[in-house]
């Protein structure tokens, strides 16, 4: 029993990364209609940025959680203005080509600058150690990751449902043309939304830095699972992205525990089942934000 509980906590902690990053992917897809294949690279950049900030400026995780998303937001704005904005009127094939090409460039640049072996990272003291509750070992940092991501997801959800900005973004997601005809300058939101999605991926990267290998390639496999998450949740669905993120984390953990060889395949089996039963994902487009 305690083992099951432990697997669940580990699964949810791993799911936190998926949930945060998938949330960014969903927001971007919703408003821009762009499937951002560079999301794994942005996640990697977040982790690398955290490692570099710690190494050069002695900025600990606490600062990185604040600073890196801001940097990534700015980076996202630049990428949107320079590159992504030209995609909006083009065939979706081009968005695959562009964002995928961008991934290759970013990964190679990081390899050139920081090598392939990875970068070191140390947790601040306050997050080291573990709680031992009735035989369940709960590493502090895993709990922190879990709570932090849930808080961020909740904040995003509240913003989307309770604020005027959220209302506008939901409208722009559902029918951008009508929103424009109703007097809303949808174009003004495109770059910030892209930047925000990139910032979320970067934030997931910062959280991953202390217990994942920080290498240029760290986003590659992550991105593959991320797309399974988004398909399971429903492309463009915010709630779907978060729920599916945690779900995939759990599937991964219990897969590792009870069918180790199939741990990763299970995720794609789940994806296939969802596509068969609900092609639009667990939370299809129209229920995007309810």
């Amino acid at each position, binding site marked *: 029993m305690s083992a099951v509980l432990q697997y669940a906590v580990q699964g949810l902690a791993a799911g936190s990364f998926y949930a945060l990053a998938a949330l960014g992917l969903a927001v971007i897809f919703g408003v821009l209609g762009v499937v951002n294949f560079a999301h794994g690279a942005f996640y990697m950049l977040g982790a690398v940025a955290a490692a570099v900030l710690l190494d050069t400026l002695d900025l600990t995780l606490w600062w990185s959680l604040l600073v890196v998303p801001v940097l990534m937001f700015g980076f996202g704005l630049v990428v949107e203005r320079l590159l992504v904005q030209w995609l909006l009127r083009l065939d979706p094939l081009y968005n695959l080509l562009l964002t995928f090409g961008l991934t290759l460039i970013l990964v190679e640049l990081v390899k050139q600058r920081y090598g392939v072996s990875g970068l070191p990272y140390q947790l601040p003291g306050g997050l080291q150690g573990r709680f031992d509750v009735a035989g369940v070992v709960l590493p502090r940092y895993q709990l922190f990751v879990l709570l932090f991501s849930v808080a961020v997801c909740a904040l995003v959800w509240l913003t989307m449902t309770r604020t*005027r900005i959220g*209302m*506008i973004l*939901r*409208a722009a*997601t*559902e*029918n951008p*043309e*009508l*929103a*424009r*005809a*109703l*007097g*809303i*300058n*949808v174009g003004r939101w495109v770059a910030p939304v892209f930047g925000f999605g990139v910032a979320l991926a970067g934030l997931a990267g910062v959280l991953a830095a202390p217990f994942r290998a920080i290498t240029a390639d760290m986003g590659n496999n992550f991105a593959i699972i991320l797309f399974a998450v988004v398909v399971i949740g429903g492309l463009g669905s915010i709630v779907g992205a978060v729920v599916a993120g945690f779900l995939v984390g759990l599937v991964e953990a219990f897969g590792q525990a009870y069918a180790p060889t199939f741990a990763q395949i299970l995720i794609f089996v789940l994806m296939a089942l969802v596509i068969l039963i609900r092609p639009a994902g667990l939370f299809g487009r*129209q*229920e*995007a*934000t*309810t």
Partner: protein
Amino acid sequence: MLEVTGLSAWYGQARALHEVDVRVDEGEVVSLAGRNGAGKTTLVRCLIGLHQQASGTVRLHGRDITGLPAHSRARAGMGWVQDDRGIYASLTVEENLLLPPTVSDRAWTLARVYETFPVLAERRKAPGSTLSGGEQQMLAIARVLRTGARLLLMDEPSEGLAPVIVSRIAAIIRDIKATGAGVLLIEQNVKFAATVADRHYLLSQGRIVETLDNDEFRRREGDLLKYLGI
């Protein structure tokens, strides 16, 4: 109020509108009738600013808005009631009402909207997806009124609705007219158009072929029905 001169529109090589002139004055309801494919929807999309491949000028309150993007036209006072009502399924009734910015001091308050459309008040927290067709139409009209738009482009407001609701909508259009706003009514339902409009344009193959006042329009109702293929 609305002055359209020499409006032409294309889809690639195919020309959809030929030098169309349309005029709507303050406190006037003007209908635009024509068969399917005559160019009604294209005309509306040109006016709203959603169809780019076009030439000619569009003036609103004497101001040339031809080069403005859609959202600026809306802010200049153009209100669109879409033919499929364009209600946001993921927004509540109230959010649908609050979504567009107010554009003039004639804007209705939420209280006035709810007073005029009690059914919307009852369902203010319901998602847009749960409304009936009639309720959606009410909401689409109310949404535009709340912005204070001075020119309403109403695309097929009576389509698919029960007679009792159609007459309710007719009453609302007369109320709007009474406030001094202009309405361009895209309508195939000749009987309905005759009950609310002052003037009528007949659109055929992208051209305005006739302009009729309401008396003449009523007189030729039978002809027109045949002509419109209804």
